[in-house]
């Protein structure tokens, strides 16, 4: 950052601010909710509606940007812009992930309005934290500088810590928050130390430069150490094994709504950041694929990612077996799904990243749906333990049927959307394996790794069958406790709106599972116009700092 770039910063402000509009709307929503508290007239109102309206507006702006409408500041032939003198990058991947995060925020706020967590008094605090974390995740997804990576991670994490402990009076909630903040703070510190080594070694934190320098000497010990520490930080956000231990405890202690937020939005942002780092390091971020960079980096990076992914997916599935608490079961399922998405990233191809994006969207609906059903059931029964839900289908038919759709989709059963998502990942792995083995590329070792990952992914899908079916068996096949004890078996008093909500999500899963062409195309488009190096430098990454 030199005085020259500072001048650029002010010159480009009128171009950069519209590109940043969705985030600015979120900032506005946060300030507005806090200001409203000052007036007696609004103090008693539920702030969820303010949050909902403004988040919907931000989502609309993002959709207009995706279609290249009035809020899109890019000239016709430019695919990516660097905002704020190279701090953030604005390209299709950014917009795609923003749409993902904002759509999730809208659905989550709607869910919170129905379940009554938070109550009216706490609503402003709760939604400020949710929108603040969403803002941080959005920055993670568009970061183009090591400083922005750290800022994004911290902006996403700090509100999440507070959200995990939002139910202040509950012992479990306070314990979940303490574990999250202790582990999270430690992981952030280690990540920052790694960032300081990388940025200092290369004399710049600008990601394309860092990637270019790293490709030049991938085995420098300081760089290896820095990269390892950064990967630890990302792995923690992703809950990748062996940095997963916080995840089940936090999900069990926090409310189901917060757990849904952490499992979908937080994972999505961390994956997006990892995708950017992986593609950037692999030379895939250039306008034209740069095979030389790829050849230097891939033999080291692919096996590391592959091992992480394989261990994560297998561990998550194995640990889920013995769980009886639904949120805890879904936590291990979340870990396993993060592993599945890392399988896609381990291919280090654009197809792999495109498959991950499709998976993320599908995962949003199925995981949010599962957590929403848990929240609705908690509200009427006061329990989250599946042993209390015997024969529930006689008492809450709609919720159980939709939960079955969500769990079977998480399992990957056709014709549900989960199958389409897994199919994309597997086909990306297969293509990569065939491609690496071909004489033109000549990486038989990597080809073997891809096929091994394919087998591991397939085995894990079978493994996950049993624990996804267990709650369904208890809810559908077992007799209700009331019937065994000869008491009348009353239907649960569930209002129509939650049923509608769960039905809507299940319908989306079914529809996407049958017609997944458009979604796959959108994923492909998001990656194909992936960040090309900055327009100002004419596509060639120019070293801004000193030589390494």
């Amino acid at each position, binding site marked *: *950052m*030199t005085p020259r770039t500072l001048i650029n910063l002010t010159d480009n402000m009128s171009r950069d601010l519209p590109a940043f509009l969705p985030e600015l709307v979120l900032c506005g929503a946060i300030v507005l909710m806090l200001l409203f508290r000052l007036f007696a007239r609004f103090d008693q109102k539920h702030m969820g509606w303010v949050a909902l309206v403004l988040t919907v507006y931000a989502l609309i702006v993002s959709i207009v940007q995706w279609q290249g409408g009035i809020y899109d500041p890019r000239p016709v032939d430019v695919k990516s812009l660097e905002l704020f003198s190279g701090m953030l990058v604005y390209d299709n991947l950014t917009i795609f992930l923003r749409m993902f995060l904002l759509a999730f925020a809208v659905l989550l706020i709607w869910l919170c309005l129905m379940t009554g967590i938070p109550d009216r008094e706490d609503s402003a605090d709760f939604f400020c934290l949710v929108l603040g974390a969403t803002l941080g995740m959005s920055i993670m997804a568009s970061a183009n500088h*090591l*400083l922005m990576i*750290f*800022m994004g991670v*911290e902006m996403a994490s*700090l509100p999440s*810590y*507070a959200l995990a*402990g939002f139910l*202040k*009076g*509950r*012992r*479990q909630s*306070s*314990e*979940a*928050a*303490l*574990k999250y*903040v*202790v582990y999270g*703070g*430690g992981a*952030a*510190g*280690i990540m*920052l*130390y790694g*960032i*300081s*080594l990388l*940025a*200092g*070694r290369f*004399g*710049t*934190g600008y990601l394309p430069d860092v990637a270019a320098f790293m490709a030049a000497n991938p085995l420098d010990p300081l760089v290896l150490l820095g990269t390892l520490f950064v990967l630890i930080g990302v792995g923690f956000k992703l809950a990748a094994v062996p940095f997963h231990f916080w995840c*089940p*405890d936090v999900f*069990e*202690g926090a409310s189901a709504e917060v757990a849904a937020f952490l499992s979908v939005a937080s994972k999505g942002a961390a994956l997006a950041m990892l995708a950017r780092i992986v593609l950037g390091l692999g030379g895939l971020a250039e306008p034209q694929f740069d095979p030389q960079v790829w050849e230097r980096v891939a033999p080291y990076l692919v096996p590391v990612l592959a091992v992480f992914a394989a261990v994560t997916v297998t561990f998550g599935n194995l640990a889920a077996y*013995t*769980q009886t*608490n639904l949120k*805890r079961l879904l936590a291990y399922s979340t870990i396993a799904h993060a592993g599945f998405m890392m399988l896609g990233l381990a291919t280090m191809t654009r197809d792999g990243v495109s498959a991950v994006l499709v998976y993320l969207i599908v995962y949003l609906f199925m995981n949010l749906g599962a957590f929403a059903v848990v929240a609705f059931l908690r509200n009427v029964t006061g329990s989250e333990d599946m042993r209390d839900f015997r024969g529930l289908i006689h008492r809450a038919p709609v919720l159980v049927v939709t939960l079955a759709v969500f769990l079977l989709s998480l399992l990957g059963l056709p014709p549900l959307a989960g199958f389409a998502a897994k199919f994309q990942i597997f086909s990306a792995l297969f293509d990569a394996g065939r491609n690496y083995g071909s004489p033109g590329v000549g990486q038989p070792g990597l080809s073997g790794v891809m096929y091994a990952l394919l087998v591991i992914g397939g085995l894990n899908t079978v493994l996950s069958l049993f624990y996804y079916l267990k709650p369904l068996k208890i809810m559908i096949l077992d007799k209700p406790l009331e019937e065994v004890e000869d008491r009348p078996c009353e239907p649960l008093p569930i209002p129509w709106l939650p049923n509608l909500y769960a039905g809507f999500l299940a319908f989306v899963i079914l529809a996407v599972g049958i017609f997944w062409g458009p979604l796959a195309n959108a994923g492909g488009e998001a990656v194909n116009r992936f960040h090309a190096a900055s327009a100002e430098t004419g596509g060639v990454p120019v070293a*801004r*700092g*000193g030589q390494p």
Partner: protein
Amino acid sequence: MSPIGLEHYLTLAAILFVCGAVCMATKRNAIGVLIGVELVLNGANINLVAFAHFNPAFEIEGMTFALFVIVLAAAEAAVALAIVLNFYNNHTTVDVDTAEDLKG
């Protein structure tokens, strides 16, 4: 005695980092763990400022980086202390070993 150079600062930062990591791993008191986190963050900050001092091209960037880290560390400490206080209200202790309701 050689003049103080970049290596000396980096060594100091590495020592701080290791102290912080050991502190995080071994302390049973939640406040002690948080002190460990602060040590790690400040180790990283010394790295950044030292690199900025010895590399003119990194000067402004490194300093800015360090300023942001100071602010974020303060924010993190505030949130973490609030959570520890809440934990104390529910458990009447800040011993992290007593946090064992959730496991499995």
